[in-house]
């Protein structure tokens, strides 16, 4: 069985107090408790503070381009569906630059676990608005490069995911690590695409959505709540402001994309050997 020691990676270059530390710890605890060894999974990450996460633990890693985690993760899963594939991205990375890929990953229901470190701001580029920043007229911030305030509406990734019938939609909070660990474990064992939007305070640039701000608002979704009721899930998704629900908001049981591809029904693509002999027959088709 793997232990936390197996997962010690490089020293993080995040700001002290960053919400990312808790996400990293929750993820490590989750894989340890699930008995998954470092070589048995791959983390695909993009660019931004979240993108650095796989370097701070032990696992196969493809730290690719900004916004492009999901297509790379999709390619890995299609080539080897026995490999657990986790994608970590930030809010700018996934909801801004990579928005199109997110829509289509949900449509496909590729069995990739997406964890979005949502700090409602751009950290690595020093404090610009992100797709999930609150509009200034609704109490949001004013940034250096949005001199008239944030004019665009805040994206609601949870509601968008439910609209796209994403097969697992949850919200976590970096200030509630035990709960986040449970959500990650649920996502990893779910068969299909999973989104966990993780509220993650940026201690350096986001002076509004602080630990304190979130702590006053987040609450655990009631145990009697049924995440398989899509209409109820929409209602839950629209809760934001004084009360912010955390937990599994929506779940369905659509078959994963990989399960529907006949050529990998018996064996992952990467395990299939190549035989040129059939080609003689194919060549005859041109006669």
């Amino acid at each position, binding site marked *: 069985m793997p232990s936390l020691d197996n997962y010690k990676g*490089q020293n993080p270059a995040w700001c002290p107090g960053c919400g990312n530390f808790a996400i990293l710890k929750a993820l490590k605890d989750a894989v340890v408790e699930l008995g998954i*060894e*470092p*070589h*048995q999974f*791959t983390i*695909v990450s993009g*660019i931004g503070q979240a993108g*650095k996460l*796989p*370097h701070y633990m*032990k*696992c*196969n*890693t*493809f*730290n*690719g*381009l900004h916004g*492009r985690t*999901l*297509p*790379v*993760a*999709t*390619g*890995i*899963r*299609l*080539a*080897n569906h*026995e*490999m657990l594939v986790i994608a970590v991205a930030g809010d700018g990375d996934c909801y801004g630059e990579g928005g*199109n*890929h997110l*829509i*289509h990953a949900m449509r496909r229901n590729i069995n990739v676990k997406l964890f979005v470190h949502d700090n409602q701001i751009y950290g690595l580029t020093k404090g610009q608005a992100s797709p999930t920043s609150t509009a200034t007229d609704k109490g949001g911030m004013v940034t250096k490069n949005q001199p008239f305030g944030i004019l665009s509406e805040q994206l609601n990734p949870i509601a968008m995911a439910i609209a796209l019938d994403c097969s697992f939609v949850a919200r976590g909070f970096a200030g509630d690590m035990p709960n986040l660990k449970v959500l990650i474990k649920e996502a990893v064992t779910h068969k299909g695409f999973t989104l966990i939007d993780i509220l993650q305070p940026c201690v350096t640039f986001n002076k509004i959505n602080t630990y304190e701000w979130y702590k006053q608002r987040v609450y655990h979704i009631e145990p009697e709540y049924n995440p398989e009721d899509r209409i109820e899930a929409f209602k839950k998704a629209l809760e934001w402001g004084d009360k912010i629900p955390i937990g599994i908001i929506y779940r369905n049981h659509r078959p994963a994309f990989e399960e529907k*591809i*006949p*050529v*990998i029904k018996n064996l992952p*693509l*990467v395990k*299939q050997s*190549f035989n*040129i002999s*059939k*080609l*003689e027959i*194919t*060549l005859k088709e*041109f*006669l």
Partner: protein
Amino acid sequence: MDYSIKIGGEAGQGIQTIGDTLAKVFSRSGYHVFTHQDYESRIRGGHNFFQIRFSDKPVMASREKINILVALDKESIGQHEKELAENGQIIYDSKTLNSQPSTQNSVDIPFVNLAVERSGNKIMANTVATGAVLGMLGMEMDILLEIIKDTFKKKGEDIIKANINAAMAGYDHAIKRCIKCTFSATPLSKPKMLIAGNDAIGLGAIASGCKFYSAYPMTPSTGIMNYIADKAKDYGIIVEQAEDEIAAINMSLGASFAGVRAMTGSSGGGFALMVEGLSLAAMTETPIVIALAQRPGPATGFPTRTEQADLNFALYTAHSEFPRVVFAPGTPEQAFYLTNKAFDISGKYQIPVFILTDQHLADSQWTFDGFDLSKIKYTDYRLRGDAFRNLSEYKRHAFTDNGVSPLGVPGDARHLVVTDSDEHDEEGHIVEDAATRIKMVNKRFFSKLPLIRQEIEPPLLYGHPNPDIVLTGWGSTFGAMKEAVDRLKKECKIAMLHFSEIYPFPSTKKLNYLKILREAHAALCIENNATSQFARLMKTETGYTFTGMINKYNGRPFTIEGLLKEINAILR
């Protein structure tokens, strides 16, 4: 004997079906065949044509003169009547066209009425026309009937019978009516293989063990995806239509990272979106093959036409500095073998390799005696299974003598496979230090490059070994140049230098092409673009300047006569 048949009509009238069927009849009869298509960016209407040339000698480009024009619309007569050769004939159906050609050399054949009378369905008018062409040529019908049986096997006996009746009706009618026909085409020996450029690339990918192809549809590259998708089940390949080209290249890189051979393809506009992915492939040293099928730009340009103006794009695009290989096949046969070589080199050196083609090559069909599968190279360069497990230590980007670090398959061993788009250390983790940066650039670029250079074959010299006149080109101008040499070789010492392995630029060790060029009186660089991109590359790489340039940039390929005219104008 050297005949050209042109089938003209609106999109949606079935021009391609007639053309494909006739081409197959000729190739199965043992003739050398060349077909090319000229179509508009629309599904219905407009004016399109399909041109077939067949001969008892090798043919590899289109001619301007037409022997039989199958006119399915009025426009065909208006536009192409003037292209008729002396013995040329037009066949048409006056009832559907509501007009008649001005020339006496025409035969009115009621395609639609014969279809309705003999097969009960006007949809078979095209089969009537196909039969009529064979009647005009005085060919036997057995091969066409065989093709009809193959094509409609799944649709049942009734459909087969109806099509045979329609074909025979057209055939008999043409024999009776075309008194002035002087054509003669008796079958030759062995059937030949008939294949288009796109299919040859797809086939080459399959023959190279490609397991993953992701792309977004874009003319003229879509045929590659179609061909591979058609064979996906037989060969265990995943073909995924991505949401955009950015996803296409990133998915292919993901699949390649996970341990399978992967490819993507597009045309210029789509490839523009892939550019950051190209540089990702370079930084992560992930093998990938990219088919770039050129069409005229900028922007949307001429979506269905041809140009060779993306050479610079393939050579120089993507930020920073890294090695890449660019192949530009001139024939479907070259496309087949070079696609295989692309996979081999890409896997061996963990670099991106381009197949640079264009609409002309993508859509034109050629005949060959066959492809030799014993020439196909398949070496699995990856570290898998026990070989990976038994290593005591593994670093994805380890420094080695040749710059190539073993590429492990993630999950096959307890060793971790880590890579990064950031500059990284040997293990694949992010670094910021200058010393590692220098070592990594040296590894990726300077260590690999001399080895990659050695893989590149020299241009093909065809014609006189010490020519006075040299026609130089690359990619799809091959056919027109080669036939031009054949036409002129009795008059002068002439040769073609055709470059299909363009970058890294071939050395002169195996063939001193620079000596040949320098000793010629006239060395012409022939390109389907406006700015002589290859001639500039030659100048940059070797310092050599061609004595003259021939450029064509109207979106159409060179014809033999057109090229000869340009050559004569320069030489005179």
